[in-house]
């Protein structure tokens, strides 16, 4: 665990961890609100948003991409609501139609756009390129952490995802009570005078911000997996929302670390030649964790779950 680790593995691993946490936190509330698909929808509509932002500005930089993706997320949410109400179609179908159509539109736009000079293509959109986010300047191993020259050369994705992760954590802490009350009992929250519409919308926007920042660094596969797998697994570990959040963070970190290590070394262990995609492996590990908690989680069989409630 010397200088090679710091140079080639520390930053991708950190970015994977921070991206996983930033997505898992809002994922807890999306799942409890039966809106897990929204995370999926957001991570898909991010693509057309980013492409349009690129077309308008001509550069691949964080702020226009973030705004483009957030704009696309808002358009998607409005479209989903419109399809639901005007077409009288169930929410899941409305989301499915919206995000696949927008994603397809994003792919078409991308093909018609000259992006050869920039780092923007469908494969990158799906898988990201975690392995390339290395800290090449860190020639002195751990000592680089106090070397200002080396620190200045950290991949910019790390700073962005750290900032977004901090923002998501702060929002979760500040609006904790609003989120908890309005997620459990929206009618009661309305009667208290809480701005439930804004809370729901703010949650989706926060998820969109997390998705965009994570997308930038690690691609949409991790985003989709992290919105759902760690929170769903965490729900099976505890009956307390507070502890569920901690479990989801722990599972997100575990997925990122194990996924990164398995992707890098796993194939070698079984005799294969090449490492596999870290993003794909991180998502796979999170799915495996969910599978294990489904089988062995202490709160996997709860009274009334999956049965008709007698009223």
């Amino acid at each position: 665990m010397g200088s090679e680790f710091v140079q080639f593995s520390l930053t991708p691993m950190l970015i994977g961890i921070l991206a996983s946490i930033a997505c898992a936190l809002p994922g807890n509330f999306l799942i409890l609100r039966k809106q897990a698909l929204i995370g999926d929808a957001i991570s898909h509509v991010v693509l057309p948003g980013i492409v349009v932002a690129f077309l308008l500005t001509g550069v691949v930089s964080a702020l226009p991409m973030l705004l483009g993706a957030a704009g696309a997320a808002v358009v998607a949410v409005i479209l989903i609501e419109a399809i639901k109400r005007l077409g009288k179609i169930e929410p899941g179908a409305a989301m499915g139609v919206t995000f696949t159509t927008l994603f397809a539109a994003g792919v078409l736009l991308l093909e018609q756009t000259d992006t050869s000079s920039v780092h923007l293509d469908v494969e990158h959109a799906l898988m990201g390129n975690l392995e390339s986010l290395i800290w090449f300047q860190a020639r002195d191993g751990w000592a680089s952490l106090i070397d200002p020259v080396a620190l200045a050369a950290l991949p910019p994705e790390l700073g962005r995802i750290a900032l977004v992760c901090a923002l998501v954590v702060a929002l979760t802490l500040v609006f904790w009570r609003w989120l908890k009350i309005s997620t459990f009992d929206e009618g009661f929250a309305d009667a208290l005078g809480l701005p439930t519409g804004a809370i729901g919308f703010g949650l989706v926007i926060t998820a969109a911000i997390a998705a965009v920042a994570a997308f930038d660094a690690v691609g949409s596969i991790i985003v989709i997996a992290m919105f759902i797998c760690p929170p769903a697994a965490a729900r099976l570990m505890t009956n307390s929302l507070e502890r569920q959040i901690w479990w989801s963070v722990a599972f997100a970190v575990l997925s990122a670390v194990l996924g990164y290590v398995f992707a890098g070394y796993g194939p070698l262990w079984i005799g294969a030649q090449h490492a596999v995609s870290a993003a794909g492996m991180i998502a796979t590990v999170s799915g495996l964790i969910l599978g294990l908690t489904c089988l062995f989680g202490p709160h996997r069989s709860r009274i009334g779950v999956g049965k008709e409630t007698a009223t």
Partner: protein
Amino acid sequence: MALRSAQVTVAAQDGQALRAPDPVASAPLAVRGVTVSYGEKPAVFSVDATFPAGAMTAIIGPNGAGKSTLLKAALGVIPRLSGEVSVFGQPIETARARIAYVPQRASVDWDFPASVIDVVLMGLYRRIGLLGRLTGAQRAKANACLARVGMSDFADRQIGQLSGGQQQRVFLARALAQDADLYLLDEPFAGVDAATERAIIDVLKSLKADGKAVVCVHHDLATVATYFDHVFLINVRKIAEGPVATTFTGANLNATYGGRLAATHIDQLALADPA
């Protein structure tokens, strides 16, 4: 004639300080011309209602008559097409701290990861605020509210592991924690056991004795006369409102239910105008 009305106006101005407050203007809950619509058909049409203090009022009517809708529209939980709502003579936005609301039990997902005491503490939200720290006194208050509904032994139980009646009592404890003056309950007796019904009615009667206003959407016509002081009969439009003794009549019930109540059923009720 013109002279007389002028004198009345002057008298009214002079007597303003002494006059008893207008019962409608300062009522715990008064709605005027409230209309709510889901789609094209109105669910509640141009309803006026006044709910008095120190009394228990039942809102009764057939399924789909707009009972819950009226309550939710008054609270602003669902949007109104038109109409005004006042709570103790004030607009609802400034009077929310004086209202406690118990939604229908079936309106929430009881699999939510929360314990009984977590839910009761939600009733203290207005006092704790978004970022305030929960104090020992507030926790004690929540426990006292649980004790009032006989659920102290279940404080740390996950809410999904309770019976329907126990869940309803937890909702009532949360409303008690709000320390309100107006209690609005949506079908608090729906699908509960006899012990719970007893526990709930005891709590509601003690609230009434403290001068609070209690309003329940209610289904069971057989208990209206024993539980409630006032009734409000609705079938999209208001049919009648007033004390049970004068308003809970066979004629009004027929007008409300449109002949859907069997005559034999009506005969068994303790009505104000026995046939």
